[in-house]
């Protein structure tokens, strides 16, 4: 899922990338950028393409770390896994990641 998300960004297909987001994250993006999700998402500094190096799943939450750097957070819903936060970098220990896109 995370790989498909970044592959869509790599191809410049903003709508395909938005299809991998959960509803809350895509709505928040549209509200903040005042543009449709498919357009707004391409203006963010998110990794384009890349491969997932590590994945961890706990109940209905997961994260995927890209080999090229950056981490995505995912939630499982009725439609399957969706990206809830992307382009995340660690900050201080025990502190939340700083994410380019989040819900």
């Amino acid at each position, binding site marked *: 899922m995370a790989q498909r998300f970044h592959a869509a960004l790599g191809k410049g297909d903003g709508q395909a990338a938005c299809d991998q987001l959960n509803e*809350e994250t895509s709505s928040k993006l549209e509200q903040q950028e005042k543009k449709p999700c498919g357009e707004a998402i391409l203006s963010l500094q998110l990794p384009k393409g890349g491969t997932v190096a590590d994945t*961890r799943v*706990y*109940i*209905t*939450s*997961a*994260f995927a770390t890209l080999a090229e750097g950056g981490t995505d*957070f995912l*939630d*499982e*819903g*009725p439609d399957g896994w969706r990206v809830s*936060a992307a382009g*995340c970098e*660690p900050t201080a220990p*025990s*502190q*939340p*990641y700083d*994410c380019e896109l*989040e*819900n």
Partner: protein
Amino acid sequence: MRRFLRDNSMSIVFLMLFLAALCGQAIAGHADFNDTAVSHGDPTISLGRYVLSSDFGSAVMENWQSEYLQFTLFILLTVWLLQRGSPESKELDKPGRESDESQKVGPYAQQNSPRWAKVAGIRRTLFENSLVLVMTTIWLGTWLAQSLTGVAQYNADQLDHQQDPLSWSHYITTASFWENTLENWQSEFLAVGSMAILAVYLRQRGSPESKPVGAPHGATGVEG
């Protein structure tokens, strides 16, 4: 059949109560899980998914482990610890493991004694301590299960807040794990202590957990 039910009514009734309470916990826990998910903007899950989740598993295991710890300590420590006047205590002149004669082992075993009570060596040692050994094994097993399900639940919450998950070895040093553990332990120890002391002065006619109604407060190790 009627005889079987009567002779085993205690275990049957408590099994039924346990199953009913476990089902109730699953239903209430599922509702609570989904309420929290909705408030966080997270997806909800089905009851079937919930009872297989670490959230439910952790909630069940943290209670089971404390119950089996309670029994382990109660069974073991009452070999040596005494409480004057309590039916939960041995008589005051009998602390310790007691004699082979009073325990009916080896040459003092009766014809209908369990087989391993009659023999010597490792088999008798295991049988003499089988209650504590099994209770301790169950306690440690359920405590381990609590930690494994707890770390999954903890890490799901960590990811929900875009924080790093913890390893199991790190999780068992966290305040969250020990808070969940000790909140259960304190209640178990309170229950045993309360029972030991309240039963000195209070009675319940017909219960083996109580002294006979007319027994003096100072009578120790006497059951009704």
